[in-house]
């Protein structure tokens, strides 16, 4: 028996004990585990036909919301990011206020406020309320990324551009932004992952995303822990897949270090 094998045995025993405690916790709590009922929430076979379960339907909505928000987030991020480096005092103040207000208040309150207070005025649906509220929140972060990207470009670039007689606007759009975009591409795409996670909060305004479908399933079956664990794992899996794809893509595009 070498030292390594003893440690290995100890490790196995420890894992075993951990599993035992988890098992004890799971059984002694009086909670009746029913993992075997989980699959029907994803796919069901009905008379030989495949039917999308509620979780997959919810996942589609989650994707739709995240994707639309991602586009809008980028629009907001670039607009206000550029605002924050302009000469105009008003534009800079607007950018500053936007970022600080949306970064320093809870997203759940922003979503509720938008849906119950602002949406009725313009007759915006629950789905679009969710998209807009999420975009405004994530856009504040995107704005900071864009601003940092612009500010990371060497001062010499600005000076060279001005000495060639370009205006500030032209300098930004032809000289600075093309260089900054390359730098901010990766952090901006990471926002997509944040959006997928944060979109779980739209369930508070009765939008049927994955989280809402999970809550509905729980209220019907009371399989609380099985469903939450499954849904959390689904989010995890999807985000890991997206991250891996982003890494490969960014490597191909040579967006710089990850």
């Amino acid at each position, binding site marked *: 028996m070498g030292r390594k094998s003893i440690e290995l045995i100890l490790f196995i025993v420890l894992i075993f004990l951990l599993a035992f405690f988890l098992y004890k916790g799971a059984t002694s709590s009086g909670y009746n585990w029913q993992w075997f009922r989980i699959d029907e929430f994803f796919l069901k076979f009905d008379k030989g036909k495949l039917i999308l379960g509620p979780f997959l339907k919810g996942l589609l909505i989650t994707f739709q919301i995240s994707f639309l928000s991602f586009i809008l987030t980028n629009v907001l991020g670039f607009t206000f990011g550029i605002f924050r480096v302009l000469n105009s005092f008003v534009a800079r103040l607007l950018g500053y206020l936007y970022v600080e207000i949306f970064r320093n208040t809870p997203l759940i309150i922003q979503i509720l406020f938008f849906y119950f207070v602002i949406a009725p005025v313009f007759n915006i649906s629950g789905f679009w309320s969710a998209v807009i509220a999420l975009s405004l929140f994530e856009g504040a972060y995107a704005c900071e990324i864009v601003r940092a990207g612009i500010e990371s470009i060497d001062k010499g670039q600005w000076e060279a551009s001005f000495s060639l007689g370009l205006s500030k606007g032209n300098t930004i759009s032809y000289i600075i932004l093309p260089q900054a975009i390359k730098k901010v591409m990766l952090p901006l795409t990471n926002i997509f992952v944040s959006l997928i996670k944060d979109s779980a909060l739209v369930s508070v305004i009765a939008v049927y995303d994955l989280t809402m479908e999970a809550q509905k399933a729980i209220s019907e079956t009371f399989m*609380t822990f099985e469903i939450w664990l499954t849904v959390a794992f689904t989010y995890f899996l999807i985000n890991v897949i997206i991250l891996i794809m982003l890494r490969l893509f960014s490597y191909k595009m040579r967006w710089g270090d990850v």
Partner: protein
Amino acid sequence: MNFLKKFFLILLLFSFAANLSASEGTLDKILKRGVLKVGMSTFVPWAMYDKKGRLVGFEIDVAKRLAKDMGVKVQFVPTKWSGIIPALLTGKFDIIIGGMSITPQRALKVNFSIPYDYSGMSIVANKTKAKGFNSLKYFNKKGVIIAVRIGTTAEVAAKKYMPNATIKLFDDESQAIQELLLGRAHAVVASAPMPAFQAIKHSDRLFLPIKDTFTKEPIGFAIRKGDSDFLNFLNSWITYVKAEGFLKERKHYWFYTRDWEKLIK
């Protein structure tokens, strides 16, 4: 290595100790602790906060009386309704006293006492959106939106009686009512008397399509499975206070008079 061996031995002892600790009933635990922990959620007029931030309501009176008869103090644990059963199962409190309807689905997870009260679902609708809807069949149509609180029997009733309507789920009743007031839902289904209260409060925008409740639901205490002694005590207690007239008197005060409103406003 020596340290690891010791550590391992201690762990082993612990795991045996965990197994050996005698399991005592909830009743003994409560008496030893001197506190009855009650899981509840706010539903008007079962449980609500008064002006001073204290809990009042029908269920609050029931819980206080139960604790008094056990000779212990009462501690309320306000919990989101949608998560109240798992919170009970994982031991966050001893009992749910919150106007919980006895249903087969719930009874698969928890043990219910005999009913100590009966409630029913009623429906309140938006005057402009649901114009002329004077029976449930009008609401059972595609395109009709019903807002309810998630995890309640209102959700079950809405699905059962209005399967063709779209059900929108919210975490609490005030949000569902807000949705109705904004005209984004045709109706809200909830336990009586809340819909009637709302129809009076917003008589300009809301109305009651049907005057009475359309379901009858037994209300019971919910406790964890596998504790027949505690369940037996609860059943005996309910039988006792029922005979005494306490439940009837409290029910009348909270549901058929509005004397308590001055506590709230």
